[in-house]
């Protein structure tokens, strides 16, 4: 019973938050509601016994991602109203509603193959984090490492793109201009 109440409550909340996040014209509202929605989602994780996931969700999303976005927003100065000219709203709404109805219609039908043998079953008595750790560092070791590489890539990408070197485009300069700039930089160093 508790589960049902919690489910419906959080379901309502997440839907509401996300709905605000995609519809509001106030960027700040959008950010806030998105962050709230993220946190509510972690609630589902906790309900479903995925404690580790819940924690990660809060830390990564509500912490890191939202902080990044907040920075970005300040940088872009989008705190004021965002004017968005939308062409045809019917297309947007129509497409989404149709897709939702279709998928929901199918998903409300029960899955036939409910009794699936779990490949990596949850073990009684072990904490979720432990279990996750065990699977993550055996079976999913490679993806985990690749994910690390991915984060490294993202980091490098962020640094490169946001870095100062991008301000001056070598692509658009002639070779002799590039030489001049180089010489100037050399002088500065000296």
């Amino acid at each position, binding site marked *: 019973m508790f589960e049902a109440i919690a489910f419906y409550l959080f379901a309502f909340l997440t839907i509401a938050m*996300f709905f605000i*996040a995609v519809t509001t014209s106030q960027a700040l509202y959008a950010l806030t509601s998105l962050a709230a929605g993220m946190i509510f989602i972690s609630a589902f994780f906790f309900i479903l016994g995925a404690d580790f996931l819940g924690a990660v969700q809060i830390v990564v*999303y509500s912490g890191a991602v939202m902080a990044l976005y907040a920075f970005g927003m300040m940088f872009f100065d989008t705190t004021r109203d965002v004017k968005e000219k939308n062409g045809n709203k019917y297309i947007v709404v129509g497409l989404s509603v149709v897709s939702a109805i279709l998928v929901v219609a199918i998903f409300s039908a029960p899955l036939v193959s409910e009794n699936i043998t779990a490949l990596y079953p949850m073990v009684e008595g072990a904490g979720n984090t432990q279990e996750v750790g065990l699977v993550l560092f055996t079976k999913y070791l490679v993806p985990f490492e690749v994910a690390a590489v991915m984060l490294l890539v*993202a980091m490098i990408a962020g640094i490169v793109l946001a870095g100062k070197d991008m301000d001056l485009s070598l692509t658009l300069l002639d070779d002799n201009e590039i030489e001049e700039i180089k010489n100037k930089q050399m002088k500065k160093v000296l």
Partner: protein
Amino acid sequence: MEIGLNHYLVLSTILFAIGLIGVMRRKNLLLLFFATEILLNSVNIAFAAISHYYGDLTGQMFAFFVIAIAASEVAVGLGLLIVWHKRHGTIDLDTMSTMRG
């Protein structure tokens, strides 16, 4: 009233649809990125739920990686936006249609 897997799947779908709405109607790139986060998050709920109902950890693993991916995307996306904003002072995607046809 038992909450079954289907409930979660439906919820996930609804959230996904909201994400799609956002993707389609947002013209501000930053807010558009929000919508893509919603997409990924909605799927995460479903993964966790399936994982729970099947007693299988793979779903959680998937959700975990999805979170990692979402985070990386944010980094790259913001980097791109910063560059664009530096040049043009706007992140409205309607300004971004020099190539067409």
